[in-house]
């Protein structure tokens, strides 16, 4: 049961702040849309938190966000982020929030300059005793570079207006220590999406999360399962969203949340500069990963893809290289094929090997200049700067339609192919004389919806090993 106020429990999204493109002005309409989207599955909302880019907002803007929040929240509590570096400003923000109708102020550890523990205590004390608004303390050392000291929290918990603490550190030793020393007087909220279940199990009252505007119902379900003592099911639920939660927490924060919302049809605009929508803290590769995960958890539909694995005579599969059965025979080229993996992890590799002076040498050099758009060839490597020999190109047979598909080739498939080749060098399946004389091209077919890098790499390694074995097994007399 909540301790000082009845409403402080459950799931609260730390809302992003939408901005218009170009002007970077707050997009109030988008904000309303966002709240309406999240509201059915949450117990309250949080405006201008870290996810809401609070340090980039003016005092007026923060007040306006609270006003809109109160208008849209249909009576659910609105917690106003009132963090500031100076006590004076944080106090002014808290006054504004009170006037605008907020239920509480979320106040972060004072940052940038490093006040002593005494200074930190005084900061919260001043606000909690001078503004008639409940205060939630906020520990987020990842951005503040310091923890809100437990001893300070222990004393602040005595103040009537201090009702809770949000711990975004993800460090459960800290959460447990706060529960131990102040859990009888304030509600502790988890603020780190990756450790919701363990924190709930440890005794927190609720959560303020970036991801609670993307999948609040998952978190409601986790709470329900924990209360019902169904730990196994709760674990499964947390694990479903583990990677997305990790991306939100560690690989882009509010920017990543905005990217996810946009994919779900809620365009919240760009972040304010110096943050970038993509290509900064949120990398292109990570954004592609968000799409993949949203598909996986059913937040966005998976587009159907018609394709097929190459079939027919092996010698006829190298047409893209302008090599057919005649060239294979005339230049003594070696070919082999391998298939491995199940379902979306099924991989087929059709391999061709031969001398640099044959048409294969020409095909190899030509592929490095990229004749096929979206089917760019990659050199097989163990890792960057460890090119395998004989020199081998990986040529995807299907067009890579997006970065998410390219991510499966670049890295997992590329290095697994490299490893299969070096394995074969080690066993001398591929003879040493091949190292300098030959080149190889591997036509690689990967399911467009493959998404498990580990499984995919294993499939590629197995398929490539099989193809190499076929290609390099000494041909019996008279065999074609």
């Amino acid at each position, binding site marked *: 049961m909540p301790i000082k106020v009845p409403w402080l429990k459950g799931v609260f999204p730390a809302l992003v702040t939408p901005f218009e493109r170009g002007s970077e002005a707050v997009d109030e309409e988008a904000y309303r849309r966002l709240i309406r989207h999240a509201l059915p599955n949450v117990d309250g909302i949080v405006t201008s938190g870290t996810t809401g880019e609070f340090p980039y907002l003016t005092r007026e803007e923060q007040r306006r966000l609270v006003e809109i929040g109160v208008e849209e929240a249909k009576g659910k509590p609105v917690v106003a982020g009132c963090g500031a570096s100076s006590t004076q400003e944080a106090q002014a923000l808290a006054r504004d929030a009170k006037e605008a109708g907020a239920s509480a102020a979320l106040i972060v550890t004072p940052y940038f300059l490093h006040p002593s523990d005494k200074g930190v205590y005084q900061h919260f004390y001043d606000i909690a005793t001078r503004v008639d608004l409940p205060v939630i303390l906020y520990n987020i050392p990842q951005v503040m570079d310091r923890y809100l000291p437990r001893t300070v929290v222990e004393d602040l918990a005595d103040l009537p207006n201090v009702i809770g603490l949000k711990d975004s550190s993800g460090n459960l030793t800290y959460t447990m220590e706060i529960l131990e020393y102040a859990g009888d007087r304030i509600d502790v909220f988890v603020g780190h999406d990756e450790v919701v279940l363990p924190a709930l199990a440890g005794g927190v009252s609720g959560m303020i999360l970036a991801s609670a505007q993307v999948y609040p119902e998952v978190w409601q379900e986790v709470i329900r399962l924990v209360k019902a003592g169904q730990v196994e099911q709760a674990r499964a639920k947390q694990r479903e969203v583990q990677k997305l939660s990790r991306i939100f927490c560690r690989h882009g924060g509010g920017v990543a949340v905005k990217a996810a919302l946009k994919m779900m049809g809620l365009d919240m605009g760009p972040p304010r500069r110096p943050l970038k929508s993509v290509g900064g803290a949120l990398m292109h590769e990570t954004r592609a*990963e968000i799409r993949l995960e949203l598909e996986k958890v059913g937040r966005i539909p998976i587009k159907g893809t018609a394709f097929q694995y190459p079939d027919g005579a092996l010698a006829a599969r190298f047409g893209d290289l302008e090599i057919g059965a005649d060239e294979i025979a005339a230049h003594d080229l070696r070919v082999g094929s391998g298939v491995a993996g199940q379902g979306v992890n099924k991989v087929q590799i059709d391999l061709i090997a031969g001398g640099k002076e044959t048409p294969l040498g020409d095909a190899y050099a030509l592929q490095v200049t990229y004749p096929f758009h979206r089917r760019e060839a990659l050199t097989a490597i163990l890792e960057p700067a*460890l090119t395998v020999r004989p020199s081998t190109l990986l040529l995807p047979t299907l067009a890579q339609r997006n970065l998410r598909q390219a991510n499966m080739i670049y890295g997992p498939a590329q290095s697994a192919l490299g490893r299969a080749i070096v394995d074969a060098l080690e066993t001398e399946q591929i003879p040493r004389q091949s190292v300098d004389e030959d080149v190889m091209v591997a036509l690689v077919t990967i399911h467009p919806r493959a998404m498990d890098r580990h499984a995919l790499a294993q499939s590629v390694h197995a398929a490539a090993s099989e193809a190499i074995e076929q290609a390099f097994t000494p041909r019996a007399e008279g065999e074609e």
Partner: protein
Amino acid sequence: MGYKTDWFKGIFPALVTPFTPGGGVDELAYRELIRFVLPHVDGVVPCGTTGEFSYMSTKERMRAVEICLDEVAGQVPVLAGTGCTTTRETVALTAWAKDAGADGALVVAPYFLKPSFNEVYDHFRAVDEIGLPMVMYNIPQCAGTHFRWWTAEGGLLDFENAIGIKDSSGDLPFMEAMFEKVKGKVSIFVGHDEVVQPALGAGADGAILASANLIPDIWQKVYAATLEGDLTTAQDWQQKVQKLVRIVVRCGSNQACKEGLRMMGVDVGDSRHPIVPGGAFRREDREELRLQLEALDKIDKSPVTYDLGQKQVVTDLFATYQTPNTIADWTMKVGEGFAGPPFQELAHVDLLIGLADGPVGRAIERSIAEWGEERGLRVIAERPRTLVVPTVTIRTDKQRRLFEQAAEGVRLAIDLSIEDGFLPEPILDDVVLIMNVFVHPAASIARRVAFNNYKAARHAIRKAVEGRPTVEELIAEKAAARHPFRYAP
């Protein structure tokens, strides 16, 4: 009251320890290394951090110190690394070193478990009682402990045999506190190669350095210039070696020193596992270390034959143990280069070098004619004819601008490869190049894009010509290789 000894000053290399493949100290290589550095140094340190003391058995450490004492034969002082995690072992090894004839002991702050300040202090007190001159050694980046100035001051002033401190932290405020507290009473040595000159200039008495395995003569110049009050000369030399020592200090110092020595002709093997080639000392670091050693005249040029079939060309190269005497088969050579940081500006170059009338030449002409314009292919040089292919399709002006930077980097790599002989003038009409160049769509820092592509392209040219990585390297590194994009975020 003056210094407790007169010999603890100047330049001391923290010697790497060569190991035999079967285990044990490689005596012949160790002696060769000592003879290599001896003319330039004021003392030597066997079994320091660079000497991999923490990977050696007590017996091996004793053997290394014995060999060192024998080879040095009194020409310069020998400061034996005798630090261990426990006081008991440290006392025993230091007592042994005293009997063996070492001039002093370098004793690292007890590591791994993190004893408190007073426990560290008492550790050094126990070693002091042996009666061998002792240097207290602060290296928080490895030991995980930092004796604050009060621990150091207490020990250095209270212990009769404490003759000095080696500070490898690179923390100049700490060193200044040492000057304030103990200057003139004990020796204060700097142990961080990147700040040698500032430390000496500020009053340090000497330096114990990993990079003094490679360039003891240059450190001697810095030291001498500082003593003469010629700060400008000292600063110039520090700046000339700054990149080399940054690579050594930050990119796997033991292995970096060992591979550097091997390139210079002193084969001291590899570090013990878990240090591996291509690990902390990355492949691209090796290429850069080599270039730095070349720039400092530490690698000799020797003649190498380029056999183009109808044409033989002899070129003088900075050859290492991996450079073949004859480089044949120019149909098509494949090379790869990779350079960063930062992540978004990293460069990844796939290179083909081959005969103009072979597959590479034909691919250039056909691709230009058929899809060159559409895919943004560009010929950026005519001698040798070089086609640059953008790995990522260029869509924006910013990408176009940065790709131009990358092309500038590639051009510089070609120019310098012509200059240093890897692309000798007489073959420039016979061979052609395709450079497939990756510029990340989110790259911003133009200067890094250009420089990383210069590095990657230059490395790729050398690797293609020399046939690296070798099959032996591939097999050795296969298991531990880790493609950074193989894993999900």
